[in-house]
């Protein structure tokens, strides 16, 4: 049976789903929720789409199930304040529990399901949110139907209490706009369709207008879009409204918009204007040490491994990962649970071994490991968790004293090559070619199958797990040993499976080249190239060019 303790941060739909599944899988689960109740934003929704069922139903099943397990600990009003990796595979977490309790626990992994805030609609000045009565957000429209909402559960105007007849929905409010959120949150179009549907179902005499840029309803939601459009006939205006005018005497809101399909200005009077706002990037504390993408969301490896963050033992689930609806939040929670279970039960991977006689405890391996798998133990020596390590070898590439090596992937191979070349009488100008095992090696393999003449003669290929695993000392060794040139074929920057490989290699080689130039050894003898899987011909071209350069430079002066 799996043994382990997992902390789930956040008790929204994603956190609850993850906690329930982990508890079912017989793990010890700790659930920390910042607010005073479980359920998160889903608990404040009126209806789910597309079936218009109440979210309460699923939530009650989940919370009931969680509370029935004895292996789940729930902490409300609790916030994670510190996460530290203290031993291989073990995170020590400090939780502050209101009013004044501090809990410290050791866990084998964390699932972060803290969600994300909705974009602040008052930042969109032209729509007057917060100033004009009757301009509300989609989330506030949900609350109109709740018994504890501003209208006591009656579908009436939230400010005046008057009847609702004409409602406008403004899509992409603050989304897909470089002054606000540059991206599409993906769920707001379907939310508006859902709200049109339930307004029509509970109010007989109602007219809905939707101002949109594009209606984005991917997959089966397109069918839902068709259904709502045909059944309720909302007025669809393609354009982004330029502003809203308010008339105090009648209480009318006039939305001004240029219809981009007819190129005419359209004005409509409404009782209520609903802004379909997207989700802002999450506020993730630094102690998680999670790498973010350009929008501020945690970066997974797309598309192959979206839920795997570059921080071993930490997974993200729900809106903290990217803007998403309840259905996708559940999916992402299940993905995080799957990753978590795999991590706790997997076969240990190839991981680096330390020679403590040489190590001087400088900690560069800890700093450069892209996954946080390498930590300094209490004695100051690096410890690598076999379960966290993804065998990229970036630590061995950076180790100044060559004391950390992946078994079978270390510097011994280069020494053998150099010894072999030195022992030959008249060697052909040898070139050492390092190939990244993920991309460049398959490209090289294809090239050797294609080329039948001897144009690849004299090239000694060496496969490394990532180009970042190549230590600068190996290149020095090859050059001192008399090899004419060294070429490093890694991935293009944005395609590296370990993300850090090519940039680290580029810095290391830049430094080396500067030293070589000072030594009056031509820096052109070391070259980096970016090769992806299909680049066999590019690799061939680069090699031929490199050979020509080396011929011009003449033999290595160290030979």
């Amino acid at each position, binding site marked *: 049976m799996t043994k382990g303790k997992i902390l789930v941060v956040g008790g929204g739909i994603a956190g609850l789903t993850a906690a329930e599944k982990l508890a079912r899988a017989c793990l010890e689960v700790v659930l920390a929720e910042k607010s005073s109740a479980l359920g998160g934003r889903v608990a404040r929704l009126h209806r789910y789409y597309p079936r218009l069922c109440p979210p309460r139903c699923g939530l009650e099943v989940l919370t009931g199930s969680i509370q029935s397990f004895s292996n789940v600990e729930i902490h409300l009003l609790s916030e994670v304040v510190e996460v530290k990796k203290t031993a291989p595979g073990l995170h020590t977490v400090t939780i502050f529990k209101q009013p004044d309790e501090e809990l410290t626990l050791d866990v084998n992994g964390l699932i972060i399901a803290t969600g994300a805030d909705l974009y602040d609609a008052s930042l969109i000045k032209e729509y007057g949110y917060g100033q004009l009565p009757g301009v509300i957000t989609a989330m506030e429209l949900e609350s109109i139907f709740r018994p504890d909402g501003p209208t006591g559960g009656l579908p009436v105007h939230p400010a005046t209490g008057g009847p609702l007849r004409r409602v406008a929905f403004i899509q992409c409010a603050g989304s897909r706009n470089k002054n606000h959120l540059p991206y599409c949150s993906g769920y707001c179009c379907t939310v508006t369709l859902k709200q049109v549907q339930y307004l029509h179902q509970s109010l007989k005499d109602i007219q809905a207008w939707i101002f949109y840029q594009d209606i984005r309803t991917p997959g089966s939601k397109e069918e839902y879009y068709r259904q709502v459009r045909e059944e309720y006939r909302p007025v669809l205006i393609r354009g982004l409204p330029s502003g809203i005018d308010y008339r105090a005497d009648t209480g009318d809101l006039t939305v001004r918009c240029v219809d981009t399909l007819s190129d005419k200005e359209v004005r409509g009077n409404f009782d209520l204007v609903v802004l379909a706002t997207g989700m802002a990037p999450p506020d993730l504390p630094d102690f998680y040490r999670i790498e973010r993408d350009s929008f501020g969301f945690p970066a997974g490896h797309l598309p192959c491994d979206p839920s795997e963050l570059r921080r071993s033992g930490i997974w993200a689930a729900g809106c903290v990962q990217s803007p998403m609806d309840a259905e996708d939040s559940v999916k992402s929670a299940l993905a995080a649970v799957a990753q978590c279970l795999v991590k706790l039960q997997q076969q240990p991977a190839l991981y680096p071994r330390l020679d403590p006689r040489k190590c001087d405890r400088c900690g*560069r391996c800890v700093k450069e490991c892209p996954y946080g798998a390498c930590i300094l133990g209490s004695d100051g020596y690096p410890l690598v968790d076999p379960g966290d390590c993804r065998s990229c070898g970036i630590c061995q590439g950076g180790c*100044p004293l060559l004391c950390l090596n992946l078994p079978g992937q270390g510097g011994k191979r280069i*020494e053998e090559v150099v010894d072999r070349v030195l022992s030959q009488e008249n060697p052909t100008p040898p070139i050492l070619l390092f190939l990244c095992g993920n991309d460049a090696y398959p490209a090289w393999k294809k090239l050797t199958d294609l080329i039948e003449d001897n144009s690849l003669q004299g090239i000694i290929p060496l496969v490394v797990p990532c180009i970042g695993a190549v*230590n600068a000392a190996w290149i020095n*060794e090859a050059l*001192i040993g008399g090899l004419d040139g060294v070429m490093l074929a890694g991935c293009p920057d944005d395609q590296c499976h370990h993300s850090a490989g090519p940039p680290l290699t580029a810095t290391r080689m830049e430094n*080396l080249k500067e*030293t070589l130039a000072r*030594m009056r050894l031509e820096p052109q003898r070391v070259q980096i190239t970016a090769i992806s899987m299909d680049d066999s011909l590019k690799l061939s071209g680069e090699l031929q060019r490199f050979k020509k350069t080396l011929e011009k430079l003449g033999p290595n002066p160290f030979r």
Partner: protein
Amino acid sequence: MPPKVDQQKCDGCKGEKEALCEAICPGDLMYMKGDVPRADCRSPRDCWDCMSCVKVCPQGAIETRLPYQLGYYPAKLIPLMGSKRVSWTCISQDDKVERFNYKNRND
């Protein structure tokens, strides 16, 4: 003569408590200077020109100036460390280049 540190290449051993040059210097002359720590020699006159710091620096950021008894400017002596070999490049003041190559480990 004192070691000269290339501030662009030195990365302060990525903020470690004791950088490699600090640890290896037999005279305890190297230290980390500045808010963004970069190596520096605290007492240039006390340097014995052992060049340990030059050899150990993973970034290749340190260069030592030769004392005038050995060679006038711009003479240079530059080591390059392989995994079991070490090479020395001597560039004399009249630009003559000589290279030496030794095995320094047998395993």
